[in-house]
């Protein structure tokens, strides 16, 4: 049997398409993600130093990162940094904040309700849906087997 011509073309495409620089991206993600986490640790130390309880301090750290991401997204600099940082900025909560704020900004031209509000979670939606779903499953497992 002769090989499917599409499969042969697919192989050619893979051979001739330049690959993303994996090692470089990993190093950037490690350094930028690490720097972001270090910053978060410093914030945590500061908040607990100012008298916040551990649980409160953790919440305050998340709020601060989200607020700063929203600010830098609105200023148009977050995407330029994230292009290099890659997963280093996308995996922490900053990536989530950016996906919400950037969508809200983009669709503001279609109005506050049908634009901003409806489209705000087009990118973040999956995180919320599957985050909640798996939290529920984990909760059930915990309740029935581990408690």
């Amino acid at each position: 049997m002769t090989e499917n011509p599409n499969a042969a073309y697919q192989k050619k495409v893979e051979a001739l398409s330049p690959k993303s620089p994996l090692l470089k991206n990993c190093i950037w993600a490690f350094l930028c993600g690490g720097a972001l986490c270090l910053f978060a640790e410093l914030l945590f130390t500061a908040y607990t130093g100012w008298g916040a309880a551990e649980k409160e301090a953790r919440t305050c750290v998340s709020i601060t990162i989200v607020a700063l991401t929203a600010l830098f997204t609105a200023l148009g600099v977050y995407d330029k940094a994230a292009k290099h940082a890659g997963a280093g900025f996308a995996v922490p909560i900053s990536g989530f904040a950016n996906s919400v704020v950037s969508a809200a900004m983009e669709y503001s031209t279609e109005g506050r309700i049908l634009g901003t509000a409806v489209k705000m979670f087009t990118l973040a939606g999956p995180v919320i849906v599957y985050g909640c779903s798996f939290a529920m499953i984990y909760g059930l497992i915990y309740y029935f087997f581990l408690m």
Partner: protein
Amino acid sequence: MASKIGKNVVSFAQPPCVIASAAVTGKTEGEGPLAREFDACYPDDGLGKANWNEAEAELLFQAVTRAIEKGRLYRSDIDLIVAGDLLNQCTASTFGAKDFGVPFAGIFGACSTMAYAMALAALLVDGKGFDNVVAATSSHFCSAEKQFRFPLEYGGQRAQTAQRTVTGGAACVIGRGYEDIIIPRAMFGKITDYGIKDAANMGAAMAPAAARSIAEYLEDTGAEPEDFDMILTGDLGSTGTALLHELAVEQYGMDLTPVHEDCGNMIFDARKQDAHSGGSGCACSGVVVCSRILRQLKEEELRRVLFVGTGALMSPDVVLQGKTIPGIAHAVELVRR
């Protein structure tokens, strides 16, 4: 009247000519290697408009206005505007052409729109029912990102095979007369699908269509690649160009490397301007042809060019449904009289 030669090529007994053309672009294109060729490069991609759709419509309006002026014509001399773009319902063309008060035929050919519109315009002029027809197109980086990809400020990484949508508007007036540049032949391409599903690799989706159209055009006209000063594809980019060269040799036994150029490779400095595989979008081939290529033909730096506009007939929904991205390539021959 037009007659068919071979299987697919349409030949014009009294070839329509290109009376005038204009190309306007955004900021990034104005910083690229072809900046001096364009009629205008706007420093603000928003063009002072309320949103990207309006900005793109303004680019089309500006290109058409300038092309008509450069042809020393009035709006009333234009019998039809044939235009298309990438946006849903071709809104940039609709709103860009609305105020001319000229009959309008909206078309969709994805990034092949410029070649498609020029071929249609030539046919209509040749049919004697129209004296002057404007072929126009536009695309905008920001409106295309919004419709096909991610919000502008979203911080993501692009694949190396991804291309940058050209911000610009392009138009040319095609009519009868004794102008320098004629369109002696044209050919509509066939939808060609080699099973590409990666929306970040449009060059790979379009290369098979380009190879097929070039091969069929050469076969029908009995020409060799070397008979042309340039075989110019629309927006294959560097990845698509490499694939085209291989496919041309393997499937059709033709070596395109001496004469082939690609608008997507010409419009940006891919490395300095972070354009990855090159330029794309309707305006990519539009602004290159309506500026540099037609100028070089006029100044006799080129005498015979085969312009093959390439389009990826991509729908984001259909790609998510697991379907492929078919390609198409329309050919228009441009000759210095």
